[in-house]
């Protein structure tokens, strides 16, 4: 029997945002938002135009940017959530708008390279 929370190999895999956050110890910065969305893919970049051009619907976006515009990008591209890396703190108005637009924002103290590696191990890929 394969348990629901079992960690499997990279490939066609789905994990809920909630499972990822729990497993990797992220802090959930937005309140009252559902984090039950399943995540298959991710994108990592700090250049907003690059994310706009190259992210795909459902991506979990890993970035060091913290300002309000990250919410705009997430809404435009229908991303499943934003993970702020390197322990950076999102601006208060970023969180306010994220709550309004229902974009979950997480925070990790790990740098981008490290956290993306861990995501890949959990089966989240950068496939386009």
């Amino acid at each position, binding site marked *: 029997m394969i348990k629901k929370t079992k960690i499997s190999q990279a490939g066609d895999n789905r994990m809920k945002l909630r499972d990822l956050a729990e497993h990797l110890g992220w802090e959930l910065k937005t309140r009252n938002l559902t984090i039950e969305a399943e995540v298959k893919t991710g994108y990592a970049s700090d*250049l907003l*135009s690059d994310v706009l051009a190259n992210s795909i619907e459902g991506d979990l976006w890993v970035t060091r940017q913290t*300002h*309000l*515009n990250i919410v*705009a990008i997430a*809404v435009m591209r229908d991303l499943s959530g934003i993970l702020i890396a390197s322990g950076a703190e999102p601006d208060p108005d970023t969180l306010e708008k994220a709550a*309004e637009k229902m974009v979950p924002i997480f925070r990790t103290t790990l740098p981008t390279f490290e956290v993306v590696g861990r995501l890949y191990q959990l089966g989240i890929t950068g496939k386009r």
Partner: protein
Amino acid sequence: MLELSMHILDIVQNSLVAGSTQVEIRIQEDLPKDLLVIEVKDNGRGISDAMLPRVTDPFVTSRTTRPVGLGLPLLKEATERCEGCLEVYSEENRGTRVVARFRLDHFDRAPLGDMGETMGILIAANPSVDFLYEHRVDAKIYLLETREMRQVLGSIRLDDPSVLDFVRQDIQMGLKKIGAATFPKIMEVLR
């Protein structure tokens, strides 16, 4: 760099290393033209005509041959990433003027960052240098001059911790009052 204030700090460090006693920082937001201009002008040693064309090439940089680090190449890249440009004017023994232009609301224009903190640190660390910081949003102006501050402060020195707090708060409140753009407006989608 993630914030423009970090670029400004870097460029002003160049001015200080070049022995400047006056540094003027002017930021102008021209909303109708969708333009952001950052100017740093000093009265330092200046850059020789031979070196001037190469100041934005990161590979000719050597701190022993000229007082410029990666600051200018990185600022140039930051401007060009958002349809802007960098201009450097200099005259030996007279000073240098760096002008960085950005499209104000370009997606990749870095946020302004904390100019209060940046100016506070610069002033506190260099109490004998005359700093001017002017920030315009169309016709609205915020202005801070250390020469003026010294007159008001009397015996209190510019490196007094209370001065750092004052500068930080005065700038933060002043910029809010004139409606300074902390980051590009790409929020149409969110309205």
